[in-house]
């Protein structure tokens, strides 16, 4: 069982940082909705509050790692230009997608949207983390602020979801491969 270095980075970017971010988003939404609503029955403890601060900071780190690895490690491999005379476009995902009318949309709509909309997720969650670090449980005293932060987190989930959907589909249609081959495990006989 083997994987290429480019494929491994694609996995780290998408399923690692991106996937964990998506999972964490739902937790942040539930927490903000349930515990920090004005008039929520139970006052969050100092321990809960500290945990949620760390949780949001970790989410922001995941969001930034996802977009930075995507833009600066995986994307250059995706948009690599094949040398003149190249017959197989297998190592050039963007060109492979653009070579057929049945797949060009995955680039012209999917990648074009994904490469920009994904950045709204770390911007939104960094703001949410900063606001929560500043206000903590006091955010319950400011319903418009808490509602707006919650809305930004929801939009960040949508943005990350769009990026994840197109990322997964593009990788299915034209995977990023190449680089050194990493041997994972021997298969059965």
């Amino acid at each position: 069982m083997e994987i290429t270095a480019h494929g491994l980075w694609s996995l780290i970017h998408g399923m690692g940082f991106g996937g964990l971010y998506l999972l964490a988003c739902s937790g942040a939404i539930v927490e903000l909705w349930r515990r920090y609503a004005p008039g929520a029955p139970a006052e969050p403890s100092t321990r809960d509050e500290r945990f949620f601060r760390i949780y949001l900071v970790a989410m922001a780190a995941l969001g930034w790692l996802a977009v930075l690895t995507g833009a600066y490690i995986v994307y250059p491999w995706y948009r690599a230009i094949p040398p003149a005379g190249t017959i197989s476009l297998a190592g050039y995902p963007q060109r492979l997608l653009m070579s057929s009318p049945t797949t060009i949309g995955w680039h012209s709509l999917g990648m074009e949207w994904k490469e920009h909309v994904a950045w709204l997720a770390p911007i939104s969650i960094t703001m949410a983390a900063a606001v929560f670090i500043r206000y903590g449980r006091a955010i319950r005293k400011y319903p418009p602020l808490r509602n707006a932060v919650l809305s930004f987190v929801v939009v960040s989930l949508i943005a990350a979801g769009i990026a994840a959907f197109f990322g997964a589909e593009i990788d299915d249609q034209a995977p990023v491969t190449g680089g050194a081959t990493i041997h994972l495990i021997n298969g059965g006989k």
Partner: protein
Amino acid sequence: MSTQSMTARPIEAADETALPNGSGAAALLAAGIGAFALAVLAIMGDRIAAFGKFAVFYKPTGPLSGVTTCAIAIWLVAWLILDLRWKRRDVALSRVSAAALTLLVLGVLLTFPPLANLF
């Protein structure tokens, strides 16, 4: 107790109602501005050849590198300026929130290629 030592108290110990909402409003509006700036810069990178060329900060990534770096710079500068102006006062939070959310939604919509291509 000096003013400085009072403001340095941890949030848990502070009177929650004494926290001005300005800092939160500044963070919100700046995030909205950053999201909208990203979409506008992405359209500019695609439509204006000179800007697209300028935006190549890192050649393997192409114009995306400059578009996103400039948007992040705009977001952080806006945040810094707004925070300096608002951190010690209360602002009209509902209006600021509405403006921030409108900018964020516009940011999402304007990154959608069929809409971005209208410009």
